[in-house]
Each structure stands twice: as structure tokens, then as C-alpha cells.
């Protein structure tokens, strides 16, 4: 779980070109959207695509999205529960 959070911090910065953000700035328990990171609704949809692409996890409606993207911790938890292991 901790590794997944670390991995997601980097992937989020990369997917959203958060040039002035370091991985540690994205705290696991703080709101992901609308906070100091400046992440908005289009960014969330970009992360939806990243999560599907990299983890095979689908977040296809707004209600689910609101829950999953509440925080980085919530996102990691959701991916952990639903991910499809590609190689084993």
C-alpha cells in the first residue's frame, strides 16, 4: 500500500504536469481535488484514464469518482481492492 501511494504520487505529478509539486506534497489523507495542488475536474478525468491504463481499474461515473478521488489514500485503497494483476 505504501509503495502504491509512492508510485501514485509520481504518476499524478507526471500525468498532470504538476511542475512545482514534489511527491511529498501530495499527502495521503488530504483532499486531492480543489486543494493547494490545483487539481480540478478535468485533471480528475485524466487520472481516471491513467488509473485504467496502468492498473486496469475503471472509474466510470461521477459518484464513484467523488468517493475514489477524495484523497490519495482513498485512491490507493480503491486501486488495491480492484486492480487486475497483469503479471503473476
Amino acid at each position, binding site marked *: 500500500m505504501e509503495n502504491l501511494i509512492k508510485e501514485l504520487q509520481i504518476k499524478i505529478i507526471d500525468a*498532470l504536469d504538476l511542475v512545482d509539486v514534489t511527491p511529498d506534497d501530495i499527502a495521503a489523507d488530504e483532499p486531492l481535488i480543489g486543494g493547494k495542488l490545483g487539481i480540478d475536474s478535468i*485533471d480528475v478525468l485524466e487520472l481516471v484514464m491513467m488509473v485504467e491504463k496502468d492498473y486496469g481499474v475503471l472509474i466510470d461515473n461521477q459518484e464513484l469518482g467523488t468517493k475514489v478521488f477524495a484523497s490519495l489514500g482513498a485512491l490507493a485503497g480503491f486501486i488495491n481492492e480492484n486492480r487486475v494483476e497483469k503479471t503473476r
Partner: protein
Amino acid sequence: MKYPQVYITGMGIISPLGIGCAATLSAITRDDKKISPLSLFPVLHGTPLPVGQIGEPISRDARLPRTHQLALIAAREALSGHNRPPDAIVIGSTTGGMPDTEKGLMAGIDDPDAYRFHATGSVGDHLAIILGCRGPVLTVSTACSSGTATFKIALELLRSGRATRVLAGGVDALCRLTYYGFNALQLIDPTGPRPFDRHRHGMAVAEAAAMLLLESSQTVPENAVAELLGAGLSCDAYHPTAPHPRGDGALAAMSAALTDAGISMSRIRDPIDYIHLHGTGTVDNDAAESVAIDRLFSHRIPAVSSIKGSTGHSLAAAGAVGAVVSALSIRHGLVPANTGLVEPDTRLPLCPVETPVHQPVRRALVNSLGFGGNNAAAVLGQIGSGNPVKTAHFPRALSILAHACRTGAGNTDATAECFRRGQSMAGQLSSAALSAGLPPATLRRLKRMPRMVLSLCETIRRKAAPASPQSVFLGTGWGALTETHRFLTQLFESDQRFASPIDFSGSVHNAPAGQAAIFFKATGPNLTLTGGDYSFEQALFTASLLARDGDPPCIVIGADEFHPDYSPLFDRSCRLARVPADGGGAFCLQDGKLPGQPSLHSLFYARTEENGENPEIISRLAAALDGRHSLSDKYSAILYGIPKCYDSLGNMQLKQFFSAINRQVPGIPYRSFTGEFATASAVATSLAVTLVQDQVVPSALTGTGSVDLGGRGILILGLGASVSAILVSP
């Protein structure tokens, strides 16, 4: 002098409802629902989403993209019974030749000929060739408000007397870009659109073309269907894709349209009988539009409906479809149903008509609200319902409050210095240089083209202060190519599995103009003109048409980026160039000549005939300069631009021009300095302003010694497929 009235004397439509006005009227009378799963192209994963697709076979010329074919079908119907071509064509389109471009790119075709109809501007150009139009051909690519926005431009063309018959409307065909793009934004309702329903969940992407033939006349023409009374434009200046939650922009556009139509809400009770809603079926759009209507009509809301539950959302065509349907409503006393509505959303302050209602419609309001917060509204009325109160408007010189440019040589001063020395500035300014002075948070999602635009805006903001533009006119030949390339590449490489919402919202042609509006908080008109090599000329021409005495300043921008894969495929002149080049120019302008300020005057803009060899257009240009404006002694030098792909045609036109004006004036070919890109003329215009302020054209440019301008200005000539003239005066 009063405005002449503007009459709709012809209408053409092809949409999921059917081909032609008669089929459309039958379909709305029956309340047909024409939403079905996409079958036009294969969907590689999952179930095809519901779309508004034209069922009838339409292919007449397989070499033409579907968009061009749809446009031609609607145009022919609008012109049926008329034996003269229109004086001008104004077409809204967001996708242009994209349906074919996608096929070419997927198949890995690198023959540029396969992409010759890629440009959105090629739709109008093709119509002009087929229909024989030799006047201005303008292309509006302002997302989903494009179709309605063309009516505002057409009205001003007619009111100013620059045209008496204008073909205006919009077209978009279904393609992968919009199908997957809107889905990536989670704006599609998988069960089909249900505008204003409590459980609405999004839109359906659709295709259509709709056109109006508009004629100005002091008397009612024989075949008049209805009147176009007014139109208005606005911008939310709020967010790239989300509407303003209180509908501020929608309200401003509707108010502007009513004012333009001479309708005073306080003086006329129930001025509007029917509002043809934008109503796409997305949660936010329908809510914002409802609130705006409630605010404007103060709880006395007329009959309202959106037909997008029946047709889907045909993007740039939507407003034009709305105008044709509203004209049919007026003509036949029919309010169409808000198809798809099952359970009205009681949280919204309006309740659309659920089944078709036969009742008189004297005046109708058509709404279009688009990406980038671009809004447009138009008022149509029964013959005789107009209220001609205003005086006529003739476009005049616009004073330059500030100007800026970017080229491979750098910023405005570096570019001008390079030019004075007679050196080429062709190249590409680094992304870091384009981003200088702009806040990193603003730039995060922006690639090359919007950065260039914001970089120009930043200079304008500094130089024009305290003045700040309130409206935006942006010309771009090709739009944000980096974003378009990223979107399509990822889509195709993932076998159409992954579509980036950020790249999609950045790829729309009007995204940079939307950024400019947010930058300046410019809530006035916001138009993106995409006329290939003449995009900047079109933007300036349109800005002059819309500018009014006492209006706040506007910004007119021309910008294009070089993209290593797409530019050589799409831009024939770029392909012939030795050096990759891009850049742009921007001008903060105010209507009228202010003392001590230089000015820009868009004097002439028209298309040549198909083979272009007829010198008639140059005679018309010379006559326009010499006659009406008597400007032949107002300039002492000429900067002319011939896109490389029109080399021989342009040089022939140049010769004809010099022999027509019968004067010795130094001519400088600006593209030899700027390099080949669609909006090189915007850079040339900024350079001309600098030289006019210097009052000297250095010998490095003339080759025969420096020229003292003697208090006069510089004429900027655009040659080739279209011919334009802009006068820069001191």
C-alpha cells in the same frame, strides 16, 4: 440611416432528423427520436455509444470528407430557387476534414494530398468554389457556439453593406476525435440524452449541417421565410470546459441578442414566444442555462425546449440547426418537444415542453453555449416583427493601443530589430521563452500554441494598461497541433482504448482564445477564425465588423505553431519551406481613430475564383483602395505575403496590383523574413506598425536605399487563394 432588415430567404438542413426542411418539419411534428448506437465507424472496445447519426446515404464524392458533403447538401437546399451565388459565406465548423484525416493517420498515410481537406476552413472554401462565391469566406471555429456565431457575423456583413446576400451556418460530421473526446470528459449519457430531466447524465455527439441564406433588403423579398432580428455573443471567461454555474455568460449572450434585435425587456411584455435551448443534457449545461433564462425572463419564462434528446448535439452545426428549426416553428406555429424528457428536474427553474405544441410563435430565441465558455444567441421573428431602430454601421479604422509579436527571433523588439536589418526571423521560439513571465500554474496543461497566445497576451496586458481588452478575436490556421497530435496518437496507439480529456479540451480550435478570455477576464465576444493562411485577416476583418464606437477594446491575435509531424502534412506552404517556423502577433484595438495612436484598417477581404487567374479580384481591390476609401496616397510601402504554395498565382496578382495602382511603391515580401506559417501576416502587421512608428523603411528591406514614409502608412497585402488588404496608419 436605418439598418435594412435581414430576411431568411433560404434554408437548408441535413441532420439525424432527415434531409431537408420538409423532412425536418415532419420529424419534429411527430417528435421522432433519432438517437442510435454509433455505426458510422467501428468501435473497437465495448458497446457503441448512442449518437445522432445521419441514417441516409449521402456520399456523392468519395474524395470529399463527410463534413464537406454535409455542408454542400445543406448549402444547395438553402440556395435552391436562387440563381445567384451568395456575396459571402460564413461557416462554423470544429472538425473540418477530421473524419478523413483520422483514417489517413490510422493507415499511416504520409501523402499530404490525403489531408488537403483537413482544415476547418476548407469547408467554406469548397462551398465557395462550388457555388461561385467571390466575396469574403469566413470560418468560425468557436466550439459548440460556432453555428449561431456565424449569424452575428452575417448580420454585421449585411448591415454594413459589405454584402447583401450571405450564406451562414454550421456543420460537423461524426468523427473519432469528438466521439472519444466527449466520452473521455464523461459527458455522454450511455442511455441517450435526456435534456432537463432529473436523471440526465450527458449528451450524445451528433452530426448535421444547417445553413441560412440571409438577405438585407428595405422591402420584404418574395421568398422570405422569417427575419433574423439580432444576435449576441459573450464569453464566460471562467473555465475551459465547465459553464459558469449562474449562467452569467449565457445571460449576457441572450441579453446582447435581444438588444441587438431592438427588443427592450422592460418595454415589451413577452417579447419571445419560444426559446430553442442549447440543452445538451449534461448536468451542468442544463442547470446553468436554466438559471440564466430565469434571471433574464424574471419568472415569465416563454415556451422552451431542446431538441438534442432527438438529434444529439451536432457541435458547430447545433446553433444553425436550432435556427432552421426555430424558423420552421415561426412559419408553422409549432413548438418542438423536449424529446427524451421523462421526469422534469424540479430543481431547475424552467419546465420544457414535453410534446410538440401547435401555437403561434412570433419571435424565437436560439441559444448556443460552448466549450471555452463561448456563448451565442440569435433572435428570429415573423416577417414584420422586426424593430429597425439603429443606425447603420460602417467598419472603420481601429486604433492600436498595443501590439506584440513572437517569431523564431524572439519577442516583439528582437523580431523588429531582425527585420530592420533585413534578416530572416524564421524559426521556433523555445517553449521556455514562450512561457516567460507566465504563472506556472496557468501553463501546466498548455502546450505550444496556447502558450504562444498567452505570451502575446502578457505583453499586451503590460503595454495596453490600464486598458484591458474585453473581447477576443483569434485567427489560427491549424489550432493547437501538439494537443491534437497527443490526443490522436494516444487514441490510435492504444487501439482506441484511451482518450485524454486534457488533450481533447486543449485540442479544440478555440481553446487558446478561451485561455485569452480567462487571462483578461474578457466576457465580451470571443471568436476563433480558422481560415488557413488568411486566419488572422479573417479575425481582424470580423473584429472590425463587430467593433462599435464606445466599446471597450478588443484583442485580435493570429498564432500558429509548427508541429514536426502535422505541419508538413497539413500546410502545403510549410512543406515547401526550408526552415520550420511559427509565431504570431497580437493587437489591442479600439474602434475609431484616437489622436496620436497608429491604427489598423481592414480594407478588403475576398476569395479568388477556383483557378484564381482572373485579374478581376485585383481590380476590385484596387478600386476599393482608390475609390471608396481614396487611400491610394495613404501608404508609402507595401508588405505583401504570398504563401509558398500559391507562389505563381500570388506573384501574378502582385504584378496586376502594381500595374493597377500605377505608382512606384517599395514592396517587401514578408514571408521571406517570417518563414512559412499560416498566421505570418499577424507578425507582418506588428512589424508594419513598428516601421510606421519609425517612419522609415530601412535600406536592408528595400534593397534600394531607405524610404521615408513621409507621414504615411504601410499597406499589408495578402495574396493567393484569398486577397486581403490592411492599412497601417501612423
